[in-house]
């Protein structure tokens, strides 16, 4: 790691004020990605603003037809939350599949979404559920938030404080994981709200999480694994790496989508 100045504010407002003064600094949420990235010297912020004491950024509440989750809420707490398990079980399920127990005790939803790792789990749920990312400045619809590999609509010094998830009528997440890192080689989140079905894919796209519009159309017409009969997914634009090539990932997208639809219908 390169040297950095360390800041530890205790509210979101103080964190944002610190960021405004400390140029080239980064917010440190759970650190499950940022710290390894800094160790490899792929990131070299001159300051770290540790959010772990910002208690105002933690918590899960039901607000009308939305589940609102504070950005510093740990994966473990989302997975175990009675509100999330009752209203959006697919989201609790997803949180319980991230990394391993020790990682879930530390990693946060805000950190995962702000980082937008192309193999992270949460972005698929944010996009499939049509969530709203709430920052210190504004509310960003999921469709406008994810901009490509590790890129988001967040501006310099802008901080995610909460994420608001509309409650779907049916949803499920399925992932084919890397056995060592537990990152998604392919993860598919399906959600049905009213008549509209949404299908998002993480881990596979060379530009990060994306909506599979053909699969969405098929499932909007018929929300059943049979609705996908005869469909294939094109390998163009998918990742090839040591874990899986693009064609294999394309195949996995169809398998995971079918499984996810089945799981959503079983609930």
């Amino acid at each position: 790691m390169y040297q950095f100045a360390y800041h530890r504010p205790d509210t979101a407002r103080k964190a944002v004020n610190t960021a405004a003064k400390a140029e080239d600094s980064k917010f440190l949420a759970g650190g499950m990605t940022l710290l390894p990235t800094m160790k490899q010297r792929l990131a070299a912020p001159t300051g770290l603003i540790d959010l772990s004491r910002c208690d105002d950024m933690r918590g899960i509440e039901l607000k009308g037809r939305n589940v609102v989750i504070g950005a510093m809420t740990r994966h473990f707490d989302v997975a175990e939350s009675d509100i999330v398990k009752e209203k959006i079980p697919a989201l609790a399920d997803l949180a319980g599949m991230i990394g391993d127990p020790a990682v879930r005790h530390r990693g946060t939803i805000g950190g995962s979404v702000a980082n937008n790792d192309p193999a992270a789990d949460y972005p698929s749920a944010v996009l499939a559920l049509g969530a709203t990312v709430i920052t210190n400045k504004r509310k960003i619809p999921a469709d406008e938030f994810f901009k490509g590999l590790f890129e988001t609509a967040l501006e310099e010094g802008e901080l995610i404080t909460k994420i608001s998830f509309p409650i779907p009528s049916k949803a499920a997440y399925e992932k084919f994981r890397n056995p060592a890192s537990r990152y998604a080689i392919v993860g598919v989140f399906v959600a049905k709200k009213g008549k509209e079905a949404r299908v998002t894919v993480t881990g596979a796209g060379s530009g990060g999480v994306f909506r599979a519009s053909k699969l969405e159309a098929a499932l909007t017409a018929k929300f059943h694994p049979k609705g996908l009969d005869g469909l294939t997914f094109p390998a163009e634009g998918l990742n090839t790496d040591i874990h899986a090539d693009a064609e294999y990932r394309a195949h996995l997208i169809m398998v995971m989508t079918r499984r996810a639809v089945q799981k959503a219908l079983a609930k």
Partner: protein
Amino acid sequence: MPKVSMTVNGKPVSADVDPRTLLVQFLRETLRLTGTHVGCDTSQCGCCVVHVNGVAMKSCTLLALTADGADVVTIEGLATDGKLHPMQEAFRENHGLQCGFCTPGMIMSAVDIVRRKGSELDEKTIRHELEGNICRCTGYHNIVKAIAAGAAAMAPAAE
């Protein structure tokens, strides 16, 4: 350099640290508690698992400064009055190790599993919960057996 203070294995400790200091470095290099190991250094292998405020975390991916004020327990803090913790004893009894490098992390994770899941653990639960701890010597059979036995020995009635 900023000062960090915390409680480690029941003792208050403090030191001036470079902000880059990871909790595991603070434990091993500053406090000389070398029972906590560094395997992969990328939060995958679990050799560095310690308890921070009672919860299992990977100390290679946590800044010492973030743990300021925390109550930290390492493998050295489990035994009491020269008597092994029931989970340590179970690893010994069941030969739940070969080279032993992953063992401290395995045991700290195992104690955390019991905290969350209770003392009656089936094989499937143990194997699933161990997904963040990697042993490179051999299979996990004896580790799984040791955790089931250690969990049972930790049940309040058995104490």
